[in-house]
């Protein structure tokens, strides 16, 4: 849909998109210090995608129900769709774009390829961010433990067997 089409479909009574103030937000994204002056309504997800052109992080439900928007804030996995960018002030954020070291993929990224951990790829950035965080969390050894710990990431294509295999491969629990 082109921007003009969008405009013509906007209801005439839509509230004007203005806030009575802006938020001045400093973030460290994938090691880069950045500053954004934004409407305080902007979520971290929209800040990444729309303001910083980091579109690897995906928007699925925008309501905390799918995990597609998973990123790391301060080293922990969280949902960027339910995080206000202004509330992430001063925080260090890692997105899927920040995992690889130049041309060398993160072992979890490589494992997702090797184990067939995705089909359409829409959920994959969130899956991998969750899976990388899982490595530092208390999580039992079994496939079922991984399933439970990855349950915050929904995959519409049903790539779950490959996802569990990838996580277990990186944890050295398989092959």
């Amino acid at each position, binding site marked *: 849909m082109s921007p003009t089409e969008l405009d013509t479909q906007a209801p005439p009574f839509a509230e004007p998109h203005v806030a009575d103030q802006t938020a001045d937000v400093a973030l460290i994204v994938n090691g880069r210090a950045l500053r954004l002056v934004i409407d305080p*309504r902007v979520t971290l997800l929209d800040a990444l995608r729309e303001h910083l052109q980091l579109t690897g992080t995906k928007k699925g439900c925008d309501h905390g129900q799918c995990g597609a928007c998973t990123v790391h804030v301060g080293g922990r996995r969280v949902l960027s769709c339910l995080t206000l960018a202004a509330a992430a002030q001063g925080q260090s954020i890692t997105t899927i774009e920040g995992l690889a070291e130049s041309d060398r993929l993160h072992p979890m990224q490589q494992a997702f390829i090797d184990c067939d951990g995705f089909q359409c790829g829409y959920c994959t950035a969130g899956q991998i961010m969750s899976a990388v965080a899982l490595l530092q969390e208390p999580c039992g050894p079994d496939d079922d433990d991984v399933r439970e710990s990855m349950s915050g990431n929904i995959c519409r294509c049903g790539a779950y067997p490959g996802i569990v295999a990838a996580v277990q491969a990186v944890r050295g629990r398989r092959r």
Partner: protein
Amino acid sequence: MDPFRFVAAADEHAARAAASAGARYLAGGTTLVDLMKLHVERPRTVVDINALPLTEIAETPGGGVRVGALVRNSDMAHHPLIRARFPLLSQALLAGASPQIRNMATTGGNLLQRTRCYYFRDTSAACNKREPGSGCSALDGCNRIHAVLGTSDHCIATHPSDMCVALAALDAFVLLSGPRGSRVVPLVEFHLMPGDHPERETAIEPGELITAVDVPPLGFATRSAYVKVRDRASYAFALASAAVALDLRGGEIRDARIALGGVATKPWRAREAERTLVGRPPDAASFRAAADAALAGARPRAHNGFKIELAKRTIVRALTRAGAMA
């Protein structure tokens, strides 16, 4: 979202000063931001309280634990004191939401999370809780997920929390700090039944801040369990859940704690059921009798009658699990 002013509070004083009428505190944001996107919450000011020093978990005299309002649900669940002394609380927290959400969700925010009633979340539907006096769309609508205990003719929404169910079983206290000083409210009195005023959900007053939750000592809580039944294995709200603890000595139940989730309008303490267990052996017949007592007052609507038997079996399973512990 509707426009709002964003204030990052440096301390408790600044937070309360910024919390004028129409303001909301922001903790993990997993309830508030979600509902702001739906225009169900329309705060004029959002006061970020994440810089406040309410992140501690500390031992209290006698073997209890005080948990700061900004402790993340994942940190409480995995804390050695919680795991060792109150396994049902750790299990309840880990049964809630997803790892990402638990890394965001806080003790205080969890206490104040809002119902998942579909009509509450849909501003085009009548809902007494969201808009007092507008009616209740769930009474004769789709009410499969709704409550069978503690309902009124004005609202049948469940309280969705898992954590609060364990806290109800443990007789926890909510610590509040407000313009008129500090006070302590028992958790079982913190959440209100809908009655004629479903829009009034808790005992918190405008501008008041939750600072901590106190879990008092309970020796036999080491023999406890939280069982949650939902539509899928994980990442779903409870259809029925039970938090239980058993004081077993000489093959006899001396004391018991039972609280229910997913079936009631507030975290539901089942004291009648607890009493039926005292002096009885920890066997299937005793557990079933307790389960029957817990649901004796249940009032189903068109689609949620299944929850009565489901809740009973959930109680029996939780008691069986606790009873079998070493």
